[in-house]
């Protein structure tokens, strides 16, 4: 967990990257990517990808995950895996309701 001291410069660089990504997040919201490219939902995909990148920068550098034990990685990965299971299975249910009609009852 502790022990490794990250140089200050790394923190400043990561912070600048985060601020740039925040600006990109706002800029992207101005552009209607869905209509421009014909790919439905591209805006939200890009927005979430940027948010995910920001999260990884915070986790890896500010939270020192990069220099942490394998066990810490397992816990971090588990949070994403468990969240994914909850989202995917629940939404798979909601989204697929009404796809099949049972007419015999």
């Amino acid at each position, binding site marked *: 967990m502790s022990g490794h001291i990250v140089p200050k410069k790394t*923190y400043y660089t990561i912070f600048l990257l985060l601020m740039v990504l925040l600006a990109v997040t706002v800029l992207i*919201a101005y552009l*209607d990517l869905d209509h421009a490219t014909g790919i439905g939902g591209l805006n939200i995909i890009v927005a*979430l990808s940027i948010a995910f990148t920001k999260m990884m920068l915070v*986790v890896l550098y500010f939270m020192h995950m990069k220099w942490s034990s394998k066990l810490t990685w397992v816990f971090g990965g588990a949070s*994403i895996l468990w969240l994914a299971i909850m*989202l995917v299975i629940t939404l798979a249910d909601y989204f697929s309701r009404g796809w099949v009609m049972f007419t015999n009852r």
Partner: protein
Amino acid sequence: MWAFLVTEVMFFGGLFLAYTFLRWKHHDAVVAASGHLDWILGGVNTGVLLISSLTMAMAVHAAQEGKRKATVNFLILTMILGAVFLGVKAFEYSHKWHDGLFPGFNFHWTENPAYAGGAEMFLFLYFVMTGLHGLHMVVGIGLVAWIIKRANRGDFTPEYNIPVEITGLYWHFVDIVWIFLYPLLYLIQPPHH
């Protein structure tokens, strides 16, 4: 601490799940309601939290090097930024109340009546998600205050500074939640107005 943060991910995860469902089910109403959120204030607050994460990282850095004064100063800065965030949030909340956009008690939807239900649900989720996040901020500020007291007392050395690091982990986690909340709540439609 990481194990606790996993449970926190699931805690907030349920709300993100509800959000996803609502946005799918009542898409147009969600877009209309989201337009009432102030993307500038939300963006400023995102910046404030990112700066506070930097000052928190610098506080942990100073503690690891055994610099007591710098640790305390960076922690105080972090606390001030946290308070600024909550101040802006309180300002936004009072505006929503004033505009009749507070679900349940003071909700008067003046646009397309077909969207009233979905819009009220969206604003309800907005208040629950940002409210829960704000509560985490209050707890975070309390933790930082406690760590300031301990740092000032000289509890931390280059060998022992785990409490500072743990508080930092919590603070960064709360920042990450907001990193997702900002685009999902404020930036659904292009911020034209």
